């Protein structure tokens, strides 16, 4: 397995006193796609929300254990810095409705008051939109509002927005569940390209999607990490009974 830049060590997460993630140890290989799958309520969304410190925004939520990015414990540094290093794309596309496409892409910089020369921003916008496979479609309408795009385009805009911050890893929370099949396959293609330069973690409840796009898969059940391994091997010869039952649709 290639070296992992992102690891969790005994990571547990709580809502109040209720434990929703139990002591998870995972290593996410660099420049690969790792899928996290499992039935509803298994804790997969909570897991990735811990990774960019969004989990703690819920009142009463807490975590224990470590999250290491390049051997630096993310739980010990300012959450705002964490979120600049680890980007996130959500289930429903959420471009900022008051901003143009151009401004949406560099929103991470603008909102933080980070100034750059106009030419620099132009370059970032073009690069990010190209990486998100959206450049050709919007290059002439960069100053229109983001909400005029279709669902699939909006989601690619959100991906561009996350990429513009140059994160080391990007977390995708069921990014295609609100999209039609055509848009979904476009984004899956895009992920295939992106993983060459960035580590991708994707939560999905669509096992077929996990099989299509990931190199590694983690299966979670009731807050515990049941199995982790190479996708092909996990899907064909799962080691755990629960994994096999999930894959064969005994529960969903």
């Amino acid at each position: 397995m290639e070296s992992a830049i992102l690891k969790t060590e005994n990571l547990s997460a709580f809502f109040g006193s209720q434990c929703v993630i139990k002591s998870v140890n995972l290593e996410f290989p660099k420049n690969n796609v790792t899928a996290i799958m499992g039935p509803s309520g298994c804790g997969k969304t909570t897991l990735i929300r811990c990774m960019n410190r969004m989990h703690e925004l819920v009142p009463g939520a807490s975590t224990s254990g470590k999250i290491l990015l390049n051997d630096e414990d993310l739980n010990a540094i300012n959450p705002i810095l964490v979120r600049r290093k680890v980007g996130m794309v959500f289930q429903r596309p959420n471009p900022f409705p008051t901003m143009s496409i151009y401004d949406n892409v560099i929103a991470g910089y603008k909102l933080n008051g980070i100034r750059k020369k106009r030419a620099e921003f132009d370059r970032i916008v073009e690069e990010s939109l190209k990486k998100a496979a959206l450049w050709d479609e919007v290059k002439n309408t960069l100053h229109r509002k983001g909400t005029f795009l279709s669902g699939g385009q909006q989601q690619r805009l959100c991906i561009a927005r996350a990429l513009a911050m140059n994160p080391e890893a990007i977390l995708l929370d069921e990014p295609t569940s609100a999209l039609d099949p055509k848009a979904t396959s476009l984004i899956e293609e895009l992920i295939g390209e992106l993983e060459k330069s960035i580590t991708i973690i994707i939560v999905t409840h669509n096992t077929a999607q996990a099989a299509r796009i990931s190199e590694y898969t983690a299966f979670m059940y009731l807050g515990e990490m049941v199995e982790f391994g190479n996708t092909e091997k996990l899907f064909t010869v799962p080691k755990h009974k629960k994994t096999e039952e999930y894959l064969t649709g005994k529960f969903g």
Partner: protein
Amino acid sequence: MVDNGVSFRIFKDNLFKWSLVLVSFLATVPLFLILFYVAKNGISSFSWTFITHLPKPPGEAGGGILNGIVGTLLLIGWSSLLSIPLGITLGLYLSEFREGFFSYWVRLCIDVLQGTPSVVIGIVAYAWIVITMGGFSLFSGGVALSLIMVPMIVKATEETLKLIPSALKEASLALGVSYSKTIFKVIIPSGLSGIVTGILLGVARVAGETAPLLFTAFGNPFVNWNPLKPVSALPILIFNYASSPFPEWHQLAWGASLFLVTIVLLLNAVSRVVIRKWKVQF
């Protein structure tokens, strides 16, 4: 085949409906009467002198309502200054922290304030400010009006911000933007149309208020900019002149009424346009 019983019921049904229509439109007649008479009587007062001169003593024709116009503008200014920051902040707080001890009390106070008759608010402002300052003043009038404006702005802000999906906040936070910046640069701009509407409607309401001003701003036959001294306002003028026995003053009151009604209706119309044009779609 329709038998007699049924056709009677159908007849009753239609009769009912048309009587509803009649009654409803009857209820709208006073509006037209008021607007018509105010316009008819007030238009003859309108002239450049009217807007730029002070009122003349009773018995002399002519004069203007400059003291009222400036006074109303100053009062609106002071009231907005006091109520907008506070109102938006409280509205923001209530939309972010819906549960909780503090929220409950703030909400309760705002509700009580909203339901308080304006004359009672005038008494409160009198007790707090006029007595402390030892006299009537523009400032006390501003305070009284801000007590009326604050609940309106709080409610408008809270309602607008509640409608903004939390996904927006999350998107911003996930980019590593701090909480305060998220609020000021993402959430509030998205809710701006609702907040501005609340402010416009608050101003429209407060421009027409009389009772609280009677014992705070009190009135002044001259223009006054000094916040520590009494000031006039259009509603005060209308009240005083309408109740006086002098026909010249009545004429001024009609003109002032036309002026005031136009401003208030204009503000209401603008706020509707704001809501439609600025409203952010999600």
